[in-house]
């Protein structure tokens, strides 16, 4: 029996009433706008000019659909991610794979044969937004990540490799030797594989094994045709090739970023494609920006926060990476607090790579209720004692406030981080926070008087 992949997840969504199927012909220039209007995931079944293809989008642009992918309740996603990621399973290599039913090499390589969508106003070109990118370094091993690709020519794309990542590190190492970096890009993999690829794992941690852990079985990989790499066997489409040794010198972008902002042009390497493999009846995955990206980011950030809290010996009760902060830039956590642990928790959460703002509360606060959170911040915080600011931490370019345009090509920005300890201050009795409660509330019911 074939391993669960992208199209099996589409079937899961369909059974859950979370997939809208559109049979009328759709132009690739319309797909993003149409998909963005659907409250469910969307499957476009007829693509003008691309008779062999279907296109799916919005697969995980809600916590409900992410929970379907994880196979758990919505409020357990981060804890489930943390539990499963603690038990990685190494991938296995299989001999043949659906993703290689059709193989195009040499002069047959033509990226215009793929329904590259034009997604947003101001984008620098059509994009492949949801990728599972594989690379390898002789010393550090295999790596998987997710990087967007901008169409340039029938054999080349731009690739956003500006932010710090393992693949950027591998590319820099190849560049130092004057060499290109072979990579392979899989499109249309299971969301659990996308989650693993999105995880900011330490460089000695395999995202491929993490994908196996999340799945509960080894991820099946198949050897590429033209580069010494393996890709997920059940993928819909694979692009094989190399990052040219030109450094960060080609314009790429703008693109509608996961920050919900239409980004700037960036200077990036070029990906030259040597081979395209795909299924006979491929389904292209158009990751819908920003929400689909942000919902994929949230559990990864939340799990990183849980891990940081546990390392700090703080007991988390709940954690949230608000999608309004794009699942990256903010973490809110409630904890079972012992004296001093509010500050420890803030420091721990601020150590999570991209997290810029943190709020920590006691476990009596429902952190999913903004009013409760405001109440905790209003009455448990003294700014001169409970706010922690860290300067000069690593940042992402797409945050306009870090002024990355002043850095030049390849420059890395820094940022300030703010943490708020909104737990009950030491020395203030918990009884001071006794909430008002209506007299007889437990004895009378409004519907009995209607």
């Amino acid at each position: 029996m074939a391993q669960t992949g992208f199209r099996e997840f589409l079937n899961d969504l369909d059974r859950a009433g979370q997939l809208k199927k559109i049979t009328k012909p759709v132009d690739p220039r319309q797909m993003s706008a149409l998909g963005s209007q659907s409250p469910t995931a969307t499957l476009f079944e007829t693509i003008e000019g691309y008779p062999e293809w279907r296109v799916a989008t919005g697969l995980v642009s809600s916590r409900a659909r992410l929970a379907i992918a994880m196979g758990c309740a919505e409020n357990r996603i981060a804890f489930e991610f943390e539990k499963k990621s603690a038990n990685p399973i190494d991938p296995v290599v299989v001999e043949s794979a659906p993703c290689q039913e059709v193989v195009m090499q040499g002069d047959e390589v033509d990226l215009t044969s793929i329904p590259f969508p034009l997604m947003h106003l101001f984008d620098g070109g059509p994009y492949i937004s949801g990728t599972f990118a594989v690379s390898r370094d002789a010393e550090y091993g295999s790596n998987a990540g997710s990087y967007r690709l901008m169409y340039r020519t029938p054999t080349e794309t731009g690739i956003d490799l500006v932010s710090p990542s393992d693949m950027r590190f591998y590319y820099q190492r190849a560049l130092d030797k004057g060499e290109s970096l072979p990579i392979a890009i899989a499109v249309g993999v299971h969301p659990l594989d996308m989650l693993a690829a999105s995880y900011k794992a330490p460089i000695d941690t395999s995202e491929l094994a993490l994908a196996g852990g999340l799945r509960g079985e080894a991820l099946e990989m198949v050897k590429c045709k033209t580069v010494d790499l393996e890709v997920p066997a059940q993928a819909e489409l694979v692009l094989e090739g190399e990052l040219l040794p030109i450094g960060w010198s080609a314009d790429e972008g703008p693109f509608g970023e996961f920050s919900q902002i239409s980004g700037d042009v960036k200077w990036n390497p070029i990906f030259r494609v040597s081979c395209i493999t795909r299924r006979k009846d491929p389904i292209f995955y158009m990751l819908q920006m920003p929400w689909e990206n942000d919902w994929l980011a949230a559990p990864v950030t939340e799990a990183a926060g849980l891990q940081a809290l546990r390392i700090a010996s703080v007991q988390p009760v709940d954690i949230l990476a608000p999608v309004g902060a794009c699942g990256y830039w903010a973490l809110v956590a409630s904890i079972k607090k012992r004296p001093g642990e509010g500050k420890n928790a803030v420091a721990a959460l601020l150590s999570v790579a991209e997290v810029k703002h943190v709020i920590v509360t006691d476990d009596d606060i429902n952190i999913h209720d903004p009013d409760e959170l405001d109440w905790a911040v209003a009455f448990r915080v003294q700014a001169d004692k409970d706010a922690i600011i860290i300067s000069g931490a690593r940042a992402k370019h797409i945050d306009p406030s870090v002024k990355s345009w002043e850095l030049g090509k390849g420059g890395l920005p820094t940022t300030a981080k703010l943490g708020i300890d909104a737990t009950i201050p030491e020395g203030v009795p918990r009884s001071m926070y006794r909430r008002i409660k209506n007299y007889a509330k437990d004895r009378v019911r409004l519907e009995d008087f209607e």
Partner: protein
Amino acid sequence: MSPLAITLRDTLQNEAKQFDEMVDLHLDVPWRDFLRAWGELRADDLLKRDEAGD
């Protein structure tokens, strides 16, 4: 260079435009033909930006 690529080139030489504005001018062209023509401009390094990307 294809006739469409020449048209795109001439349009851009006359006035700088965003990609989506170029697409808007040729909505009657099949998407794949537009991509091929755009690729010709890229291959000939005819698409320019300044250091700020404008």
